């Protein structure tokens, strides 16, 4: 049962990991994107639209296309969301909080709208959006995983997107700390005026990190629907995972490598109530609160300790205007 628990916790954690690494990338450039929840919704539904149209258009699915089409359409959808946010907050210097919240409204609405109207809009005669076939391709795990007992189940039983999430987080961690461009990016989020003076193109870095961050976050939505939910889209099922991803950013104190551990922990906290015997339905709800409580505690501790390395990027939430020094 412990093995099953860890496995489920990891599967719960993967969408959060995508979301939080994407958001960390965005925040490192000094942009607090509260629209992540919306971005993840759009990432999910865009993949669904791609997969649905492909499944409906051919008799038998080509495995490569069946993965590639939803993947690409998901990325295009999230990129679109990222661009909206970037144009508004970077070019037009709009308030980041308001823009982010509007993006969430828009994104969740977009997801639920197409989730609810896709069949009607496409004019096809199917009862519900069930992409079981596509999902099977997404869920493909390593063939020898089930032969290795508990080890295989805990470490090897996941789909490629799950490993991609971990890989992205690790790569990003290396990128921030070990590359010149990562250093430049962090300086943009910390002190854009200094970065500007050092000859770094602040706008370009902000755009790039917002767009790429959105694409990564959007993959979380795709993973959720294709893998976790077995290809079945139901409106609002994605729930508050987008906000939980933002919480995870704080919990991981803006470090993608800590985010990996954090996502599994959050995933575990999210489902632990299922594994505690004799827990009433009501008490389960209280258990679901723990990730948020933990996040608040972390938030309070880092603000009290004031250790500089644990703080959010210094210019987070502020727009940069060169002539306003």
């Amino acid at each position, binding site marked *: 049962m412990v093995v099953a628990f860890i496995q489920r916790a990891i599967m719960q954690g993967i969408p959060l990991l995508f979301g939080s690494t994407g958001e960390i990338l965005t925040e490192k450039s000094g942009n607090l994107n509260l629209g992540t929840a919306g971005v993840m919704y759009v990432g999910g539904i865009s993949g669904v639209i791609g997969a649905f149209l492909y499944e409906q258009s051919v008799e038998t699915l080509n495995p490569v296309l069946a993965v590639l089409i939803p993947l690409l359409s998901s990325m295009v959808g999230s990129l679109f969301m990222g661009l909206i946010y970037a144009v508004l907050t970077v070019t037009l210097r709009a308030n980041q909080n308001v823009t982010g919240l509007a993006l969430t409204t828009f994104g969740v609405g977009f997801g639920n709208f197409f989730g609810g109207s896709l069949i009607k809009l496409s004019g096809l005669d199917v009862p519900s959006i069930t992409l079981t076939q596509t999902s099977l391709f997404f869920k493909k795990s390593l063939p020898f995983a089930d032969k290795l007992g508990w080890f295989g189940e805990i470490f090897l039983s996941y789909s490629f997107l799950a490993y991609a999430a971990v890989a992205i987080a690790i790569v990003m961690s290396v990128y921030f700390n070990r590359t*010149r461009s990562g250093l430049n990016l962090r300086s943009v989020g*910390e*002190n854009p005026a200094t970065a500007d*003076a*050092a*000859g770094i193109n602040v706008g370009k870095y902000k755009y790039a990190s917002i767009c790429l961050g959105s694409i990564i976050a959007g993959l979380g939505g795709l993973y959720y629907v294709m893998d976790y939910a077995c290809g079945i889209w139901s409106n609002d099922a994605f729930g508050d995972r987008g906000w939980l991803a933002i919480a995870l950013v704080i919990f991981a104190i803006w470090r993608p490598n800590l985010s990996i551990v954090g996502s599994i922990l959050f995933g575990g906290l999210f489902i632990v109530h299922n594994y505690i015997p004799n827990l009433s339905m009501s008490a389960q709800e209280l258990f679901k609160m723990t990730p948020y409580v933990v996040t608040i505690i972390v938030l309070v501790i880092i603000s009290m300790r004031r250790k500089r*390395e644990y703080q959010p990027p210094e210019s987070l939430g502020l727009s940069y205007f060169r002539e306003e020094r």
Partner: protein
Amino acid sequence: MSTQVAIELKNITKTFGNVVANKDVNLTVNRGEILSILGENGSGKTTLMNMISGIYFPDHGQIFINGEEALIKSPKDAFDYKIGMIHQHFKLVDVFTAAENIVLGLEEKGRYNIKKSTAEIQKICDKYGFDIDLNKKIYEMSVSEKQTVEIVKVLYRGADILILDEPTAVLTPQEIKKLFDVLRNMRKDSKSIIIITHKLNEVLEISDKVSVLRKGEYIGTVQTSEANESILTEMMVGKKIDLNIERSDVEEKADRLLINNMCYVSREGVKVLNHVTFAARSGEILGIAGIAGSGQRELLESIAGLRKLKHGSIIYNNPKNGNQENLRDKTPVEIRELGVRLSFVPEDRLGMGLVGNMDIVDNMMLRSYKKGKGVFLERKGPKDLANKIIDELEVVTPSANTPVRNLSGGNVQKVLVGREIAASPTVLMAAYPVRGLDINSSYLIYNLLNEQKEKGVAVIFVGEDLDVLLELCDRIVVISSGQISGIVDARTTTKEEIGLLMTKTDGGEKNEQ
């Protein structure tokens, strides 16, 4: 043209609106030479340097680098000409290490390897004698270490011409000595260095030649070997100009505010005020002269209850009941509740004295909004006051309901001074009250201060124009690096005397440490 010349400026002129910041400035700096640029505040030193480093572009004139005409349109262009500037306000990322800050933004070939870069930077440090831990984070550093990082950053980028904007303002004597050693090493390495300063002894100590600017105009250049303090002071302050500011004599004077041994240490641990002692008397305008940043701001804000002192006392003699109150460690509200009528016109008019987005009426209320019982504001009084000030001080504004942000600088100041005077203060402090104002508004402010003095108010006037200080004030306290370097009678002193006191680094008085 000799190849020795590293940089030459010819007839550089720059204007901002109606203000001429630099007029026909000519300079040359040779390789392996240190040039000091000397001048009072507002003499255009920094503007001039900003044109060399690509932040501003000159209106007229030419810049030659190594004998060829150069167009410097951005910091990047300046960098391409191997010009590096160390600004007064450091441009560093706090959470990065020194080495990370130094390599920031560089497009070097090959893989990013901070260890390798650190080793290369270390070589530069060793060469010039910088003593710094390159793996230390900026936020853990002292001001002097940060400055070192800035200098190394410029050198690492291959600069041959270094500009330092008031590098010694924030350093201790020992740190200054170290910095000068490093500068001499760089001179040996045939770098050209331009250093902006207003401390005469440093100028004489470090530089090969001195160029003097005064009110944007280029006065001249002298070889340091042929200069001495009095020659430089005279060049810097110029001859006295008659302004015809009225100065009345008030018979009855009494000590109103006694500042005793005031010491203030900034959050960064810098001693900003060091054993400051003086008295402000009623019926007198007490001038405070000094180079900007010598502690004037902290002095006034400490008196106003906005800063916590380390040492000393602020004794107020209440003229009504003869009580003595110590204002130290009291908040502005507590000071007011003691019945102390202290008015303060701060340097930062729209950031502190007034709220830019509020209209004149609401700004009138800042001091008085708590008056009266009940939870509601009383706007009648402030409105009358606003109209009165608009009338009497001839504030140009569409109405009393115009946000003060939309007023011109002079009118903003009239509103602020008007409000502070309306509280019928017994002590009135004004920091640079005529900065940026046209002549008419300036005289209006002088008259207002004189009126207050005649009413028996103790006026403290922080100014930068020595001519004004000499004609307006009764006594002048000269402050230098947070210490009082002299208190002089404005009626008998000379401009040169004040100039010398301002640039004295060691207060001259006993240093109790």
